[in-house]
């Protein structure tokens, strides 16, 4: 996390701090994508899977999953929804396409072009980040909706392309949410005293419930996680989402 020593006092400061955070994540993302390309090229499947997870988690930490960077962001990790043929469609691109390939026995011939396109898209997003400024009005929505996406896409199982790593991705979404909370903390505290602390506790509970599903520090296949452990995650996440849903209203001027 890159939280400043004192929380930003204005929304403009918050957005600026968030931009710094994003720029660092994109550099990381590019590094993971390069590692991914090398591993796929070498036929090192297990290492490629790890590099994919690192890249996808970094993208989750960007917190852009719901399209806040427009087409540039959408190109990085779109799902297969809306594609004729779903994951088999030639139009399916990006990180989730690479996940699909790695977990369905595909190799360099099929995946290197996808990674190359991904690297181009990352470079384009990095280049345009200064002018693709995050809208200040987007920040409260982001605080709420990154975890809505985690529930909709990851914990539903519907976004999975074969890795079964829904919990790892949701965990990164928690971190993304914590980062946004960090930059909005001062503003939010002024709007509703004590509310950031409540969110801290609820987000920590989500993180703890997700971490409790790990075995020997490794992520379990989400489909095989026992129901009582899923219930603990879902309950904590549901509680946090109810609280987070108040954030846009708190910042609203309507």
């Amino acid at each position, binding site marked *: 996390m890159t939280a400043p020593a004192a929380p930003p*006092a*204005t*929304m*403009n400061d918050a957005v600026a701090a968030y931009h710094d955070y994003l720029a660092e994540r994109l550099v990381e993302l590019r590094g993971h994508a390069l590692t991914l390309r090398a591993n796929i090229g070498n036929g090192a499947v297990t290492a490629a899977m790890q590099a994919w997870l690192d890249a996808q988690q970094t993208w989750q930490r960007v917190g852009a999953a*719901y*399209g*806040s960077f427009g087409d540039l962001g959408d190109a990085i990790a779109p799902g297969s929804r809306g594609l004729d043929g779903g994951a088999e469609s030639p139009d399916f691109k990006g990180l989730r396409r690479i996940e699909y390939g790695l977990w369905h026995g595909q190799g360099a011939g099929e995946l290197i072009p996808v990674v190359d396109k991904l690297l181009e898209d990352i470079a384009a997003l990095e280049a345009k980040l200064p002018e693709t400024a995050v*809208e*200040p*009005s*987007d*920040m*409260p*929505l982001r605080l709420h*909706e990154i975890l809505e996406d985690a529930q909709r896409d990851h914990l539903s199982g519907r976004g999975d392309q074969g890795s079964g790593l829904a919990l790892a991705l949701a965990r990164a979404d928690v971190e993304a949410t914590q980062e946004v909370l960090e930059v909005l903390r*001062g*503003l939010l*505290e*002024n*709007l*509703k005293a004590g509310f950031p602390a409540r969110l801290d506790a*609820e987000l920590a509970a989500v993180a703890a419930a997700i971490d409790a599903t790990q075995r020997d520090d490794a992520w379990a296949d989400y489909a095989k996680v026992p*129901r*009582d452990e899923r*219930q*603990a995650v*879902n*309950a*904590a996440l*549901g*509680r946090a*989402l*109810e609280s987070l*849903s*108040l954030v*846009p*209203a*708190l*910042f*609203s*001027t*309507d």
Partner: protein
Amino acid sequence: MQIQRRSFLIGAGGAAAGGLLAATAAHAESEAPSAPAASSDVVDFLGANQAGVYRPAAQQQHACFAAFKVLSRDAAELRSLLQKLTVKAGILGGGHKANEALPASELTGVTGAPPINSGIMGEDIPTAGFTMTLGLAGSLFDNPAYGVAAKKPKGLTDMKVFPKDQIDQEWTGGDLILQLCADSSDMVHYALRDIMKATRGQLQLQWKINGFHNRPRPDGAPRNLFGYKDGIVNPAQDEKLVWLGKDSGQPAWAEGGTFMVVRIIRMLVEFWDRVGLGEQDGMIGRHRGSGAPLGQDKETDAPDYASDPKGETIPLDAHIRLANPRTKETAGSRMLRRGYNYELGVDLNGNLQAGLIFASFQQNIQEQFEATQTRLANEPMTDYIEPFGGGYFFVVPGVQKEGGFLGEGLFA
């Protein structure tokens, strides 16, 4: 998702924004649900016993059976959960006009927050004969975090697996059940959604199933999905087979409660429809058309087993004969049945997944439900049914006065 769904305070420092916090809790004083206006379809929430068992006398047309895992961390949280559920039962059962005050506990205190209610029922929430019936499973009493082991009613075991059962773990378990009944399916959905939103984090659905109650065709008891009138014979309240009384031998707090058995029973309706009427009648022991016991005219006629010792009129293994042999020895094993039919998509073999949500209420699961089920173990009808889910629960006593709450006796 629309990104720009409203305008935001941009660049504002903190102090200026304080005024936005004006709470909407204009009616903060009244915590308890207000008494519902008199209406023909209001089922009183208050009473020595919970509603949804004998009240209303004619069961509602729609139901949801929702079993939850309870995630409360300690007794204090459990208590507050039960209080919340009590408030919800009162408000939902009493109906609610859009211009009436809600208890402060129902409000977010944030201007412009998402609506408190889902809008499914429109602005004014009708009563629709709504009842919420709350039951607790043995697992809740066994959870050391709550310290209520000594309050566990005797006989509240896990659901017994009978010889022909095919139990699917996805359809069993849960620490707490809500039976939500109303005369419209949208009210049942509304209530469940409302309750879940209010208890997010403390209750997590374990399994749930919705049911419907058929209209009488043409009259009398409604028909089940085998086409037979079902629930014709139910013990009256004054036969004292349902509520725990003073001398039940149960923990004192349990007086006024009852045990609930829920069994989700798949009915192989395609197979059943390929069986001749005579064989169907013989398996049930009643005429399909009239509902009368075989050899009789009316559904309310009592079967005459004494003059049919060899089962020439009503086979000895007919469902009604095994379930209720009408002897002195078996009279005490009768129970109140209040089930619902369900439909649930398509089975792998292309057949309808449909059947019965069997729900019974009794003082003693072992001596009533299990004794009856044991007699039924090898009835011919077992070829056509497959119980696959459900559970045993203790329906806690009713709330007798405003300010009380369901399960209050656990903490006394």
